[in-house]
């Protein structure tokens, strides 16, 4: 392909924004804690507050006098003002008020009724006694403002831009909400970066490592697993998986439920107690990371009395093990998607505070068959990687050759005869990418193709998600199988799919652009994937049967047409043999055994072989003599109608770029 020619842009309009190197930061906007990091002297470091603390608790307190408090101070106010103090707001990013996932959990918050705008599709927290309603986006912006202030104090000047990390499974809405929160906080968001990729960046640069890595990121509120390939300084994301609603908070919750049961706090529990119990659960969990037994005093709701909650590590492990087990399927699927066996991994990177727990390390070691890497503080590693990326985007020298790639979340394909999906670009292919397949006509004198673009892992059209439809017309009538339709799928770096269809003989072409991820939430992507596993066997059978029936119908109508068209080329023996084979085929076709249909098709093929050969020779001969094309077309228009895209003639799929 020819290289593009440049036009002169307006200042700042180039794809990558200007930013002074030392003023671009990396931000890990976490569920429990947030961090900000910069690259200083070629090495990323996390910025601390005056108490040398790198973590900013992701907690925001709205005081009655209108002031807003963020961080450790806000967390300390949480048990006294449970409804005015929002923690783990990341869980609510981009979620609607009707979203059970967001509101069914054990939370002390009061949700405001929908605002004056009926179309408003976000949750709102009612704070300061109902006088104020804030969205998750606004709460996140408060955290980002605190991080910005910390960075500006350290840099001694204004911030030029930031790379903010998000879980790999965040959908478009959640990513947009994060971007908007950055803007609201007065930060120019240079790029959103997947958290596991950021972690790998931090490790890749520190270790100069090559090979395939798994990133196991169990944070406060999200679980991500990614399989990454590092080669000659180039990062490639082979696959991603995870759960946007699973994390250390769930461990706290599991422990909190046990505390509530143990202390006999049944029935209606006031929000202050919920908060205190959740805090106690977190403290117990952290203590039990290094100790085998821990105890904590919890204030009871009825006044001044307190109760002591004592827990052994083994007891806690038993409480959280069922939650932790939910990571297993995502890990196995990500490995399978990447086509990597756990034994082939060069290493497993641990990310997220929850991976400090001995139980989690044991679980990861057992799952991957090797001890995980934890050289870099699992709380800091994502922010450090984000800082490295921010430095690259800002034009910093040194690591300019690091490249990040994203992947296609679900396979993209075309409908073929019989309602079967032919996948052109497979799931988890890195973007930008492209692939071409050649199709041909199904019916004699077919003059058009209907192209239906689909997304999904299932084999039949009915089970996949339709993305777009378009048609290619004006193909001169030819015998079935003569036309050659080249269909090219390309997905650019922004995830936009372009489908181009070109009939090679006439040069007729048609193009359509689609945004495949549009309107699909992570839950839907997850569901479509799970469906494809659950139905794998029946799908393959249904596909084989559908394909063989198409084949049977095609060969039957082709044989009948040919016999009517050129009786003079048919011997009596041929006719008897073909008729008998066709009767047998018709019988097989109504059955459900694709192998029987296949055998009957082969029988018809065999019986008509000599006749077909004689006919083909004549068709080629007359083609060479050159018919009056206009006359043929006119005749064809009367008889031929558009047909669905037909049988595959052969394929040469490959990736460009």
């Amino acid at each position, binding site marked *: 392909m020819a290289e593009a020619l440049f036009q002169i842009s307006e200042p700042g309009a180039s*794809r*990558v924004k200007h930013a002074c190197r030392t003023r671009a930061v990396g931000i890990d906007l976490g569920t429990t804690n947030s961090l900000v990091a910069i690259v200083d002297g070629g090495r990323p470091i996390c910025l601390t507050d005056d108490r040398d603390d790198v973590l900013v608790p992701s907690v925001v307190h709205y005081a009655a006098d209108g002031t807003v408090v963020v961080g450790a101070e806000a967390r300390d106010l949480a048990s006294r003002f449970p409804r005015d103090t929002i923690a783990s707001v990341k869980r609510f990013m981009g979620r609607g008020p009707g979203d059970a996932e967001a509101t069914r959990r054990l939370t002390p918050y009061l949700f405001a009724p929908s605002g004056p705008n009926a179309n408003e599709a976000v949750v709102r927290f009612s704070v300061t006694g109902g006088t104020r309603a804030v969205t998750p986006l606004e709460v996140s912006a408060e955290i980002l403002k605190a991080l910005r202030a910390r960075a500006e104090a350290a840099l001694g000047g204004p911030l030029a831009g930031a790379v903010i990390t998000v879980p790999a499974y965040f959908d478009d809405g959640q990513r947009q909400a994060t971007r908007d929160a950055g803007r609201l906080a007065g930060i120019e968001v240079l790029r959103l970066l997947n958290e596991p990729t950021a972690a790998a960046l931090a490790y890749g640069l520190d270790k100069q490592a090559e090979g395939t890595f798994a990133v196991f990121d169990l944070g406060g509120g999200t679980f991500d697993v990614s399989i990454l390939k590092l080669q000659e300084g180039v990062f490639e994301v082979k696959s991603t998986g995870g759960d946007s609603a699973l994390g250390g908070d769930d461990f706290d919750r599991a422990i909190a439920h046990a505390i509530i049961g143990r202390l006999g706090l049944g029935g209606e529990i006031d929000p202050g107690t919920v908060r205190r119990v959740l805090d106690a659960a977190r403290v117990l969990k952290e203590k039990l990371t290094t100790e085998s037994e821990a105890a904590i005093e919890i204030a009871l709701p009825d006044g001044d009395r307190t109760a002591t909650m004592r827990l052994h590590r083994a007891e806690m492990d038993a409480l959280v093990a069922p939650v932790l087990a939910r990571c297993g399927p995502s890990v196995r699927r990500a490995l399978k998607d990447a086509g990597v066996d756990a034994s082939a991994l060069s290493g497993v990177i641990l990310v997220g505070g929850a991976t400090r727990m001995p139980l989690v390390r044991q679980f990861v070691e057992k799952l991957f068959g090797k001890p995980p890497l934890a050289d870099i503080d699992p709380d800091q590693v994502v922010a450090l990687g984000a800082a490295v990326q921010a430095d690259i985007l800002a034009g910093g020298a040194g690591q300019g050759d690091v490249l990040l790639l994203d992947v296609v979340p679900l396979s993209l394909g075309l409908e073929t005869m019989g309602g079967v999906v032919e996948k052109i670009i497979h799931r988890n292919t890195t973007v930008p990418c*492209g692939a071409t397949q050649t199709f041909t006509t199904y019916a004699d004198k077919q003059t058009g193709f209907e192209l239906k673009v689909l997304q999904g892992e299932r084999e039949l059209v009915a089970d996949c998600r339709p993305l777009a439809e378009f048609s290619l017309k004006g193909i001169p009538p030819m015998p079935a199988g003569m036309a050659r339709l080249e269909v090219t799928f390309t997905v650019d770096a922004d995830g936009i799919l372009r489908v181009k269809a070109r009939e090679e003989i006439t040069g007729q072409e048609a193009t359509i652009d689609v945004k495949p991820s549009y309107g699909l939430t992570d839950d839907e992507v997850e569901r479509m994937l799970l469906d494809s596993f659950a139905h794998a066997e029946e799908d393959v059978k249904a596909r084989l049967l559908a394909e063989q029936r198409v084949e049977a119908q095609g060969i039957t109508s082709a044989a009948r047409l040919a016999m009517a068209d050129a009786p003079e080329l048919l011997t009596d023996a041929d006719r008897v043999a073909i008729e008998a084979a066709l009767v047998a085929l018709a019988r097989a076709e109504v059955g459900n055994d694709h192998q029987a249909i296949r055998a009957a098709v082969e029988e018809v093929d065999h019986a008509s072989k000599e006749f077909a050969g004689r006919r083909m020779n004549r068709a080629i001969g007359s083609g060479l003599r050159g018919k009056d094309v206009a006359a043929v077309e006119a005749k064809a228009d009367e008889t031929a109608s558009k047909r669905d895209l037909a049988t595959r003639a052969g394929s040469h799929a490959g990736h460009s770029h």
Partner: protein
Amino acid sequence: MAIGVTDRAIAEIKKAAGQRTPVPKGLRVGIRGGGCTGFSYLFEWSDNEPRGEDKVLSFEDGSVRVFVDPKSLIYLDGSTLEYQTTMMGRGFKFINPNAKGTCGCGESVQF
């Protein structure tokens, strides 16, 4: 350290600059991180005077100026900026001997 600019390209830059309001102080070219193969070319007007460390290429008695930052200069050294008219359209192109490869769209470059 040198970057060549063809006469045709100079004429086109001059023409385009004259049609823009305000008239730019110069044309900034460079290399930035990002793009599908790692780097992308920066190619935009500058409304500011060159920065202290910039290399300034001056043509036609200073009526056409091209600014290059020192880091980009490393990657652009020995390049020629051309203006081309092809079937793909018309526009500027770097003939860069340092480039090891480009992606299909040509907007990114590898070294």
